[in-house]
């Protein structure tokens, strides 16, 4: 490992971004190692195929490499920004595939069959623990609320599309989304944050 990479590993994401903006591959390598797992996992969760998830992840990271300097820390964390890029590209990929329905369940056998990482950093281990707790919180939402959230976030459907799909008034969809997010937010405020 080079000295530059060792130094980059000690930097926070927000400190890595200027280096990535200056086209520092070692800073980007640290960035990839830090977030590649969750990015790929999110892409797979949305597109439901390994090959497509790889394409989405690769395109998202290369896009970040080419546009790293445009990260605006006023708009949130680097990780959230990166995941929003992955999500948008995955939704685009999903929409471009005719006739493929999004996956709607958090409990997916195909995902569970995947081999988990054997070596985890402390930070990643904590994130996975948090992920488990978050899944628990989401699992406790009333089904009608979790369904509209999943259809919107992981399926890329608009509220109008969801309204038609579920055969419920638009106002009901809005209300379920709001209630669901408020409950998740409440759980976060109580201890997951």
């Amino acid at each position, binding site marked *: 490992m080079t000295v530059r990479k060792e130094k980059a590993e000690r930097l926070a994401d927000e400190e890595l971004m200027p280096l990535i903006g200056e086209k520092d591959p070692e800073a980007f390598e640290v960035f990839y190692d830090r977030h590649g797992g969750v990015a790929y996992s999110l892409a797979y969760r949305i597109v439901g195929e390994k090959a497509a998830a790889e394409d989405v992840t690769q395109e998202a990271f290369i896009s970040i*490499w080419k546009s790293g300097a445009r990260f605006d820390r006023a708009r949130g964390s680097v990780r959230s920004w990166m995941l929003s890029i992955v999500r948008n590209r995955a939704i685009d990929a999903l929409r471009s595939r005719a006739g493929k329905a999004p996956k709607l369940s958090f409990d997916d056998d195909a995902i569970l069959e*995947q081999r988990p990482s054997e070596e985890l950093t402390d930070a990643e281990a904590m994130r996975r623990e948090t992920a488990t707790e*978050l899944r628990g919180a989401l699992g406790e939402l009333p089904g009608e609320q979790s369904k509209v959230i999943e259809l919107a976030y992981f399926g890329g459907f*608009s509220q109008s599309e969801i309204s038609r799909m579920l055969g419920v008034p638009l106002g009901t969809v809005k209300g379920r989304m709001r209630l669901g997010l408020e409950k998740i937010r409440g759980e976060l405020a109580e201890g997951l944050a």
Partner: protein
Amino acid sequence: MTETNHERWSEDVAAYLLGALEPDEATVLERHAEGCERCRAEIRWMTPAVDALPESVERLEPPRELRERVMAEVRFDAEPENVFKDDPAAAGVFARASNWLRELGSGPMGLRPVVGFAAAILVVAAVAGFAIGGGIGGGSGGGGTSTVVAGTAPGVTAKVISTDGSGTLHLANVKQLPSDRVLEAWVQREGEVEPVEALFVPDRKGKASTELPDMSGVEVVMVTTEPQGGSKAPTSAPIITISTQ
């Protein structure tokens, strides 16, 4: 718009954060929020809930090859001259492949120079060695493999195995093609490009292969996507280019 009609917009905040508003609806809400502190406060409050959604996904281990591909592209984009610094033979072959493509761009076939070609060279020395295992430029002589690969399709790797004057081209990580497109291989001898007769398509795993019946004097092999039935001259930028010398 002011805070006086906040309630009307407030009910769309959750959908906005979930990406469930139509683009024009989202734009209107953003404009309203610029002048509505209550909406901005709601957005700030609820944003962590949406940020938590991707974090809740079951974690998978991304394939090692994905990291290799991403970093190969990044390193080449950052320092193309250093990619082949430890392998002069690879650098030479790479340069020849690049020149050949540039000549194609201005040649009689009318191919435009590949936009961003330099940035799109993905399979570099380290990756080629990993993916192909035959060694850069190690393809002369009977039964050798030829390796240096350049192209416009992210992640595609290739090898040519030549035996007794003929060869087989193997590709991996090729995206699925539309039903009206096929892969067509081309060979260059003494500066002349000619098609390889057999057309081919990738299988479900993205692997594709075709026979190269006559490898004598072949300097470069490339693959393009062409309409069903093939073309007499390439009509698209190569997805992969392999120098055999």
